């Protein structure tokens, strides 16, 4: 039982990362019917932006320009990185995807992969191959609860993730932009007839998805501080799998499937040798998809004419 609970806690943490990243894939798919394959690399960009923001704030505090407690630096780092990375995401949409809005979907998919390579390479050129380490903003504290060890970081990661998902849900359900995003997911062509600017909503969707990826990357950095230009690739693909498992375009699906993926991975590793983890975990997901090809929360998409 203790063993189970211990894994449960770890699964929640990994599920949080996957869910936050998967949301970005799913939202963009819902609105524009394309997968942004550069999303994993946006996670990486978010992490580096976070690194510089955090290092800058720590430096300023050290020389006494401003004196901020570390927890506040962490909060500010998350917020500032989310905003800056949102702009990166909007730039990617503007430069990479908007000109291809009417192109075949395969072209847009290739664009995403290329933008990913460009972001990775730019990072290498600007910062070199040396690995950076995310500054330690939160001293690890370990709590023993009935034999299960829980760190303050894990609690913070899960709490912040759930909070962001709650805020995203409020945004999508209550604001006019969220309402427009939902409408676009069902029928793209009618939305401008309501006087709604499609490009603004598309950019906003990219921005939101990227901001969530940035938040995920900072949370990730507190737990796994080593950074490199390719850090977004594996986690990005895994979150993509979660987005598919949840059902393309489904926001709830992406969040739930992110956690499911975390659970499957952690529990596979707890039962089988950890080198088999991905083999077993992804076989299970393949198996689920054979029976639910539209994902857990996906609806069958009738083909739509997109004007």
């Amino acid at each position: 039982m203790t063993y189970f609970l211990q894994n449960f806690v770890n699964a929640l943490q990994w599920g949080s990362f996957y869910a936050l990243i998967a949301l970005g894939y799913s939202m963009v798919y819902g609105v524009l019917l394309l997968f942004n394959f550069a999303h994993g690399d946006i996670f990486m960009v978010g992490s580096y932006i976070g690194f510089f923001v955090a290092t800058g704030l720590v430096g300023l505090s050290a020389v006494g320009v401003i004196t901020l407690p570390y927890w506040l630096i962490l909060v500010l780092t998350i917020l500032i990185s989310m905003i800056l990375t949102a702009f990166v995401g909007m730039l990617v949409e503007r430069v990479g995807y908007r000109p291809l809005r009417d192109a075949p979907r395969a072209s847009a998919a290739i664009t995403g992969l290329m933008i990913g390579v460009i972001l990775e390479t730019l990072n290498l050129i600007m910062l070199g191959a040396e690995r950076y380490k995310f500054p330690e903003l939160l001293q690890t504290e370990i709590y023993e609860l009935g034999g299960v060890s829980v760190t303050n970081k894990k609690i913070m990661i899960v709490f912040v993730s759930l909070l962001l998902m709650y805020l995203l849900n409020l945004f999508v359900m209550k604001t006019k932009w969220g309402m427009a995003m939902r409408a676009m997911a069902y029928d793209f062509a009618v939305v401008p007839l309501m006087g709604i600017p499609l490009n603004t909503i598309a950019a906003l969707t990219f921005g939101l998805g990227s901001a969530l990826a940035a938040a995920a990357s900072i949370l990730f950095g507190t737990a796994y501080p080593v950074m490199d230009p390719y850090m977004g690739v594996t986690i990005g693909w895994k979150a993509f799998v979660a987005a598919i498992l949840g059902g393309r375009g489904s926001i709830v699906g992406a969040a739930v499937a992110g956690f499911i993926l975390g659970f499957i991975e952690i529990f596979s590793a707890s039962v089988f040798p950890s080198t088999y983890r991905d083999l077993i975990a992804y076989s299970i997901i393949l198996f689920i998809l054979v029976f639910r090809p539209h994902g857990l929360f996906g609806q069958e998409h009738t083909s739509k004419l997109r004007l």
Partner: protein
Amino acid sequence: MPLLEVKHMTHFFGGLRAVHDFNLSIEKGEIRGLIGPNGAGKTTIFNLITGVYQPTEGEILFNGQSIIGLQTHEIASLGLSRTFQNLRLWRHMSVVEHIKMARYSKITYGLVGAFFDTPQRRREEKEAEEMAYHLMDELAITHLAGQIVTNLPYGAQRRVEMARALATEPDLLFLDEPTAGMNPEELAQMMDIFRQVHKEFGMAIFLIEHRLRVVMELCDRIQTLVFGEVIAEGTPEEIQNNPKVVEAYLGKEDIH
């Protein structure tokens, strides 16, 4: 000044001439009809005027202002709304949400309003709600307000689409085969709704129809389009008796 004026509009899809030298002038409050066989280019004309396509040649003036090159949402904001031949609803959104969406540009509350339910949000939501219920009453769909549209019968979905178009408060409403697929009873109800809506809101209507009965009863003037060209224009009586129209619809009178 006419509300909408189209002058010498021509459009090519690659080498195919879809619309040739199309002219149109719609006055405020007028009901216009556009008839023609399948593939004549009727929907293309709608798409050209509403900014989905850019015409190869010609001029389009709305309230005297050229609207060529404007984006669809900009044209919509000027007061031109439309419905579609095949229903284009947001399947899993409720009826009332469909209508509220048309208030997009009138909603001014932002994140703070949405997250903290400010008085501003409450006031604007109340206004939107009132307008939505007024329109739903008009179209006899109030009892369906909270329903997800995909569950509704076809005739009701058509009305939702109509309500959504009306909610943008258009000066000119384009209706693309609004009675397609309706049974005679639904058709009669829909005709009553058109009359009632036109009487109450007084906007101009430009109507594409296959069913001659609908255009004959509703329209002030009718154009007949065949292979992208207008072959006849006039009042319903004139059109009905025009040999060219009869030929386009039924074939030549005597075949040798």
